[in-house]
């Protein structure tokens, strides 16, 4: 058991999680990164992927997150992402439709902007699908 610390996971549409946790594993730009209490203060760029954390009750929780960033302070971590979703909030059928739609958008892209947007949406959808199909 590790010492616990305060975490806030916030998206523009809601406060996803607030509370004490022991460890969080996020998908950083370089790959997976585990954060414990008293980790060196840093700013981490996050790409879309699965976020896992061990809450103070000793239970692992998982969520699918879009790109974002995390700020690590010695006793507090803040994660800010576009969207973060619990597994039971994700509907596999609609995620698959989303993937098809975005793949089509990438093929027929109208501008570089649309391409970047579709890529970001696609990465988010893949993270959701990965999380959902693992259950």
């Amino acid at each position, binding site marked *: 058991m590790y010492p616990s610390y305060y975490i806030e996971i916030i998206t*523009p549409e809601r406060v996803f999680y607030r509370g004490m946790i022991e460890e969080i594993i996020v998908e950083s730009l370089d790959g997976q990164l585990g954060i414990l209490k008293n980790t060196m203060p840093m700013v981490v760029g996050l790409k879309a992927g699965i976020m896992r954390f061990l809450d103070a009750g000793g239970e692992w929780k998982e969520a699918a997150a879009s790109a974002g960033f995390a700020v690590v302070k010695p006793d507090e971590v803040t994660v800010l992402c576009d969207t973060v979703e619990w597994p039971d909030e994700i509907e596999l059928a609609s995620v698959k439709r989303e993937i098809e739609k975005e793949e089509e958008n990438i093929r027929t892209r109208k501008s570089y902007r649309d391409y970047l947007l579709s890529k970001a949406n696609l990465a988010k959808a893949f993270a959701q699908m990965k999380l959902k199909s693992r259950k």
Partner: protein
Amino acid sequence: MPNIIDIKNRIKSIEDTAKITKAMQLISVAKMNKALVKYENNRPYFKKVRSTMASILKERSVKHRYVDDRGGERTAFIVIASDKGMAGDFNNQVLNLAYSHIERLKETYVFTIGIMARDFFVSKGINIDIEFLHTTQNPTMSDAARITYDILELYDKDLFDKIYVVYTEKTSVVKQFPAMMRLLPVSMDSLIDEDDGEKLFHGNLHFEPDEKSVLDVIITEYLTGVLYSTLIQSVAAEHFKRMTTMQQATKNAGEMVAELKVKYNRARQENITTAILEIGNNQSGG
């Protein structure tokens, strides 16, 4: 002597108008409640993202193309108004704030959100460079992302040196005022509000994996989040303003009708009195 039929018609027409304003008031209440839920959900993010950015940019001399001042005066404005009028001075306030800045600068670009904003600048003879459509009714994160990518692309092409967003800031359910915030280059003064109560982190932050790639991600995320917040706040403010305006209009209509009814009754009584007098005169005469 006022004409009874004229007064009756006026009462009728005012009552009809009151029915419309009452209906609009009820619709705005429903829309405002919906917008307020989104607003309340967004508020923690808006505070947090700004104080977090401030913690990152503080003390450390961060170098990045979206943070460094280019020194020029070419300025772009994103102006957020609504698609519809009938909301008191909601549109006027925010548009005039934007106009007062645009007027005194030499080289400006104007991006509008909302039909009222578009019409305003067209009537002032100002060219609109981009119109973002379909974003004022129900703003979504992907709307905000689209706008972010657009402005970053233009900024990268070196079309302007600064970009501001002009919107209606809502600090509580009833408190709202037009405001202007600098988006790029990201500056400390647009990040800190004294009354936010968010404390900054003092100390060095390490960038993982490196400063440039982290800031690339963070600033895109930050802009999307902040733009979404400004859109959400503007929508909530619009419906709030429309609701109070329509409430006032309905109340005014009620007062006018009450006044006219007194006039109507007086005129009616006068008519009856004259009629009785005439009958009396006729009888005594005959």
